């Protein structure tokens, strides 16, 4: 077999093999069971709790958990705004990088607090080391927030009838200390040994082979790269993200970073099975997610390895496949795998430029974000999937002649209402955002303060590809993914603010919704299963969930995709 493809398969299999024991471990953390890390971590956690005056043993209702989550996020938001707008005079700024403008600080703050890590700046010149450290902190806590709130939902699903669903603070701290921190330390250490910088010194000077003197940006990059991958953050230390050798030095680190992207999202699916003691259920969820993932990844690898017909027409052979925007050390297959793993999981780090992918590869990347539940972001991916489960349960429950129920709880009007609002939000934000941008571009509106010049100036490419660039940007924001199609002039108030609003809404409503549903269901009477009950852990139900995801997402985005990547594809491949 082609070694490139073999490499891709090995990366995926290694991720799953590692994810199963990790899932078991996460389930233990959620359940508060003892582990061998206790002697090291318990004092640390106790310090945090004592320092912040939290009683970690006090049970909280789903409403209290959500209130806690939102409150601390507001505080983080304020701290981040303050730091980013004052970096120039704050310490740890050896390169003398400037402070951010208000709109860019808003976008960046929202982006990191919401686990999106959309970057309208370049790390080398846009942020000080202090700023980078702050953003790194958010990479931990925003990922920890996702895992912790997912834990609340797991607890809600486990309980027969309950109002109190664990302690959110406890889950949050332990998600950071016991899940993210140890894994990050391991990954960062390996990265340092492979060459990723980890220093507080300023720019390095080197002499290139041509004899020119170059200034090379460095900084505490290895630590940030580790958590950006593990926490489905994706916010790179440098502008070119994991395509640049300083972040992703060689094929080995590429393997490790790619595994890290999907590791915790997959592990959380298995954690569900271990935690509820319903392993078949997690295999169902895993099966659906994997089916979707594979259906996206195979055509992407196919098109990237196949090469670009436009280049072929020019008489240039493409023995490696489509190499525009790709790193030679990774090749098209590994780049395609990364492109899909990073978009299905809401990670958003890149090792190639998605703007240069073949049209259908770009579409698959967008579809990954439009679904946003094939593994999905840490914690929140399952929450998104949970909404699809609720809708699938409702329709299929009726189809077997019972009023719908999930894990012994009746799904009624209130739950349906919340599920539909959450489901609607994503297409609403993506389509409305793209519609506004399209309208402005189509009429080439002068933008004033919002953008220097007329609206069409923000597109590097006209036509279908330009449309894809705008669609991708909002999809990435709404999916809290953070990767850019690039080729879009996005570092200006218009894109900073509109994407910021989209990220904000798309982060918190899809957390509030599923938690509310799970909380409402947890408080309901438990109905034991009978032969007439639809079981959620069967292949048939998995098929139903998959069909619901495919049809709903397909219907929502088909017209938009037809005008962007699909039109481009059929124009290119006549």
């Amino acid at each position, binding site marked *: 077999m082609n070694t490139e493809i073999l490499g891709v398969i090995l990366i995926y299999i290694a991720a799953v093999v590692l994810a199963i024991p990790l899932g078991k471990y996460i389930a233990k953390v959620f359940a508060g069971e003892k582990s061998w890390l206790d002697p090291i971590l318990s004092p640390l956690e106790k310090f945090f709790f004592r320092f912040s005056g939290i009683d970690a043993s006090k049970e909280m209702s789903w409403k209290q958990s959500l209130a806690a989550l939102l409150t601390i996020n507001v505080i983080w938001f304020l701290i981040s705004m303050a730091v980013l707008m004052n970096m120039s005079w704050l310490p740890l700024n050896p390169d003398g990088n400037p402070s951010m403008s208000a709109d860019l600080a808003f976008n960046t703050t929202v982006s990191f607090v919401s686990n999106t890590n959309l970057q309208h700046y370049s790390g080398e010149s846009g942020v000080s080391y202090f700023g980078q450290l702050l953003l790194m902190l958010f990479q931990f806590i925003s990922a920890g927030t996702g895992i912790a709130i997912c834990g609340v939902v797991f607890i809600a699903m486990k309980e027969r009838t309950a109002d109190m669903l664990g302690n959110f603070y406890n889950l949050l701290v332990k998600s950071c200390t016991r899940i993210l921190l140890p894994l990050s330390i391991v990954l960062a250490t390996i990265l340092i040994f492979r060459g990723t910088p980890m220093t507080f010194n300023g720019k390095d000077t080197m002499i290139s082979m041509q004899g020119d003197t170059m200034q090379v940006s460095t900084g505490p990059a290895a630590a940030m790269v580790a958590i950006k991958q593990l926490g489905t953050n994706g916010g790179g230390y440098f502008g070119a993200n994991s395509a640049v050798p300083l972040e992703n030095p060689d094929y080995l680190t590429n393997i490790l970073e790619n595994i890290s992207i999907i590791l915790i999202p997959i592990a959380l699916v298995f954690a569900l099975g271990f935690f509820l003691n319903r392993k078949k259920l997690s295999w169902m969820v895993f099966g659906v997610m994997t089916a979707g993932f594979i259906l996206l990844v195979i055509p992407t690898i196919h098109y990237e390895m196949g090469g670009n017909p436009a280049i072929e027409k020019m008489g240039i052979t493409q023995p490696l496949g489509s190499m525009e925007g790709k790193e030679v050390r990774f090749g098209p297959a590994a780049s395609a795998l990364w492109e899909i793993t990073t978009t299905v999981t809401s990670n958003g780090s890149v090792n190639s430029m998605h703007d240069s992918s073949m049209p259908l590869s770009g579409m698959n990347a967008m579809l990954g974000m439009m679904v946003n539940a094939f593994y999905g972001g840490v914690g929140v991916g399952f929450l998104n999937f949970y909404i699809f489960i609720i809708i699938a349960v409702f329709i299929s429950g009726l*189809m077997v002649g019972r009023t719908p129920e999930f894990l012994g709880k009746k799904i009624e009007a209130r739950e349906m209402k919340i599920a539909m609002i959450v489901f*609607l939000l994503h297409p609403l934000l993506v389509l409305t955002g793209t519609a506004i941008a*399209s309208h402005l571009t189509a009429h080439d509106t002068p933008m004033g303060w919002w953008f220097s010049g007329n609206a069409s100036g923000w597109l590097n490419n006209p036509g279908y590809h330009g449309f894809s660039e705008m669609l991708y940007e909002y999809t990435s924001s709404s999916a809290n993914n953070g990767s850019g199609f690039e080729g879009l002039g996005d570092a200006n108030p218009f894109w900073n603010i509109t994407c910021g609003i989209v990220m904000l809404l798309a982060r918190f409503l899809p957390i509030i919704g599923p938690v509310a549903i799970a909380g409402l269901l947890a408080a309901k009477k438990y109905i*034991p299963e009978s032969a007439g009950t*639809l079981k959620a852990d*069967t292949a048939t139900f998995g098929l139903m969930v998959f069909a619901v995801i495919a049809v709903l997402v*397909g*219907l*929502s985005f088909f017209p938009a995709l037809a005008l962007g990547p699909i039109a481009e594809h059929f124009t290119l491949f006549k």
Partner: protein
Amino acid sequence: MKRQRQNKLFDRDLMNEAIMQSFVKLNPRIMLRNPVMFTVEVGTAYMLGVCIWILMGEASQGSFAYNFTIFIILLLTVLFANFAEALAEARGKAQANSLRKTREETPAKMVIDNGQLKTVKSSLLKKGDVFYCETGDTIPMDGEIIEGIATIDESAITGESAPVIRESGGDKSSVTGGTKVLSDKIKVQVTTAAGESFLDKMIALVEGASRQKTPNEIALTILLAGFTLIFIIICITLAPFSDFAQTPIPISSYIALFVCLIPTTIGGLLSAIGIAGMDRALRANVIAKSGKAVETAGDIDTLLLDKTGTITIGNRKATNFYPADGINEKDFLRSTVLSSMSDETPEGKSIIELAGINPNSYKLENPTFIKFTAETRSSGVDFENTRIRKGAVDAIKSLCEKAGNSFPKETAEKVKTISTNGGTPLVVSDNDKVLGVIELQDIIKPGILERFQRLRKMGVKTVMVTGDNPLTAKYIAEKAGVDDFIAEAKPEDKMAYIRNEQQSGKLVAMMGDGTNDAPALAQADVGVAMNSGTQAAKEAGNMVDLDNDPTKLIEIVEIGKQLLMTRGTLTTFSIANDVAKYFAIVPALFIATIPALRALNIMQLHSPQSAILSAVIFNAIIIPLLIPLALKGVAYKPIGASALLRRNLLYYGLGGIIIPFIGIKLIDLLVTLFI
């Protein structure tokens, strides 16, 4: 002879009524109840505006003929949906009217203060009045017998021609207006005023006048409203997208796209499905007090069934005689026959039948017949110096032991064997000496075993309720294949059992007729009262079975499941249809300016206009085509939930994707002939 039922789906009168109603329902205020179809109506009105605009000289929207055709098809879509609802309502009304006919004005003999009778119109009777009925009279109003006993022909209501006995006191004291007294006379106290009787109220419910959306219907409406919203978002945002792509889209195409995509199929049929569910119950001669009750029936986990009449045929029958040691068989037979001479119970009659002796062939001098009482628990006859008794084992045993006679060991053993085999032993004594044992056996209804198996596959647990001792009950329970039983059941036991099941989250259905069943009927999630039962029982339950058929519960559960399944499958079908519609409309919208999108026209539709017309026409005609399915319901098969889901996903999911591809292509071929 059963009351004639309307089985024809499209009766001419009903059709006319329904067609008229479809136009009346165009009133936006009525349409607003159905958000999906309301948006279609708004779109239709908008199209009308566009047509007028074109007539006034607008040139950018295409030809008038094309736009007007779209308008007509959209209007038809709304009318078809209204028609489905109207037809279901009309069928319900027709059914209710046939019930009402039995309740026309009849003269009533009212008892006035001095005990005299005065003939008044039945409509003048008030609650609390007392009237008198004798042979041949039609009972004017619902009431309770306060004096007398009578045989009554209830065929007008139940369709059952065999007369029933009603008497004062006890559980069989209620009479229904419209039924006829066949013999004897009774005094009846009116329990409800004219037009407010229990049945009147329920008929009104069935007619849909006071129909409310059920919780599940509300939840489904939310889902459908969500799907409608998403397509509103898609259609609105498509305008700037097409601006960017420099492809002007005419208004008619937007509206066509929108109407095709929103779930009009299920939206148009949803209320028809709900009404038809109640109607199907009515056709099974069950009146449901609310749609919710029918819906709940589909969820039932536990079914409480009375043994007698449901699981076994009526009553027990004598199957064997076992004389005690040293007793001549002939003497034993003689005594058993004599003891049963005056025993009018079916058991008594079956003893004489089994013995094959005419009791009148024995000449008795001044016999004194002893009736069965609850205290002695035995009956018999005294003549000359002989006292023959027949009764329960312990009753006769104590009788014999009091007189100093011992209870024979081998008889005691026989008694035990009979009990373990599910039989009931009756001991016969002569002057307090045991003569032998009669074995009575329950006859289990043929086919009941299969029905219980069917229920088990549906996930419904069956519980037999019986007054028998645990040993007998266990035997019959095993033989009939029920999952559990309550032996020596008192009304409190039923109540306790229901509570217990409900505590563990299960939904329980039961059937009952007596006043002492009323609390349990009220407690149960689905309580079916027999029409012959007392007023209290009928008020407590949420359904009334006009046939007084205890096996009806099983049918009711299936009707409930069918109702939910019909909703689910048509929702799936409706949404699955969108895939093909997209492939018809999206290329049609953009093909002119983006020729590359021709590749999406996988159905090879003739032109953009024919593609849009075909999709809209398909969308409209699928509604009337599915009306029969909506009204009759999707067939329920007890094959387990997963298998059922697979089956329905295949038929309505995959079918829902494929059928419109074929349908739209065929319509396109037809449409092309006219363009």
